[in-house]
């Protein structure tokens, strides 16, 4: 203790401790924080992907005999996804004797959507007016039961098309998502993702102008 005091005395109090102001310049810190906040805000807002729900029919067991469901030919609409985002469609049933020509369209707003909309107008209108009524407050319904109400509308509908979605082997995953998305945009009540027929495969190949690869199965019908 004593020594320290001695030392102090030597310097004779010439050196006064510099008086620092207690205020710190916080500008760089604020700058950095601004930057970080912006970064985190933007990344959190965009990180969340969306999901689209889809249900497949239950697989039929091998030794289980199930009659294929009977559907009206007049309501059937076949959509075949081709290569290069091409979409082919034909109504009704493919008959090897009387080949219906495939009609080609695409994923634009005037393409396959218009085709589907033309056939599904009644149901589409019903859903749209229902949605409009809910937003306008004409129908008093809880927000979470809107979806099930729409599902009910779809269930009771018997005018819209039954859409069979098929894929030519060169189709892309994008087409798979796009076409199912179209179904929900237009509000199609019944659609099924199913395997492509050998006949339809030939129809697509004929439309593309490439050699046919598929042939009729040896047995008449499976």
């Amino acid at each position, binding site marked *: 203790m004593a020594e320290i005091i001695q030392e102090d005395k030597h310097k004779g109090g010439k050196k006064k401790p510099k008086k620092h102001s207690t205020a710190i310049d916080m500008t760089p810190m604020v700058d950095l924080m601004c930057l970080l906040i912006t970064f985190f805000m933007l990344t*959190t807002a965009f990180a969340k*992907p*969306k999901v689209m729900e889809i*249900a497949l029919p239950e697989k039929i067991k091998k030794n289980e005999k199930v009659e294929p469901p009977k559907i009206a030919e007049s309501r059937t609409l076949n959509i075949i996804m081709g290569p290069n985002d091409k979409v082919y469609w034909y109504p009704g049933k493919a008959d090897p004797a009387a080949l219906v020509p495939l009609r080609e369209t695409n994923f634009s707003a005037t393409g396959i959507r218009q085709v589907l909309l033309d056939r599904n107008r009644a149901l589409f209108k019903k859903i749209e007016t229902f949605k409009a009524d809910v937003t306008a407050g004409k129908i008093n319904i809880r927000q979470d039961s809107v979806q099930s109400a729409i599902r009910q509308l779809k269930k009771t509908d018997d005018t819209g098309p039954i859409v069979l979605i098929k*894929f030519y082997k060169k189709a892309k995953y994008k087409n798979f998502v796009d076409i199912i998305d179209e179904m929900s945009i237009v509000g199609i009540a019944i659609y099924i993702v199913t395997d492509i027929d050998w006949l339809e495969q030939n129809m697509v190949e004929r439309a593309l102008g490439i050699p046919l690869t598929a042939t009729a199965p040896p047995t008449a019908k499976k």
Partner: protein
Amino acid sequence: MPKIKIPHKTPHVDMTPMVDLFSLLLTFFMLTATMKPSEPAPVDTPFSISEKPSPDKNIMTITIAKDNRVFFNVDNGPDTILHFRPKILEEMGKRYNIVFTPQELRYFEKNSVPFGVNIKEFKAYLAAKDNEKAKFEKGIPIDSTDNQLGLWILFSRKVNPSAQAVIKGDNDVEYPLVKKVLDIFQDKNLNRFSLITSLQKVEVVEEAKK
């Protein structure tokens, strides 16, 4: 007339409350931020109009990359004490007569990244350094002779029955591969699942044609 003297003030603003608020916000965003998990392969997801956010927990993600490799990922469940991931790996190991050490299981639990690794190479994959892991990512076998994806799905649902399947596919994956994966789903009685998409709004103009 004497001039009015304007008191000379220093243009100093007290930034303390602002800094306080900023720290609070920063802490909040940092804690809530879910870091984008690193992807072993880049995947461009297609667009759809669906606005449903993807679930955080109880999901198993099947990623299909552009180069036809299939990846799988599953989460630890809603609570970390459930230890779903090591249990699934253990089941998987049992099927292939591979015994995983507690260290390996623990490592697998902590590192929840999509993997596309053959189960027979899994031990080497777990032991490899981060920058050497890529050579094991050849995609999970999905052939009918060695259907490991099917087993991963089976055991994930056995360990965590409420696990939902989510497919994350690239735009350019060819349909036959998608079909193969969907067939495996149907085989395992997994008929409801979701597809990961990006949001794109669509306006439908319904003009009445007469």
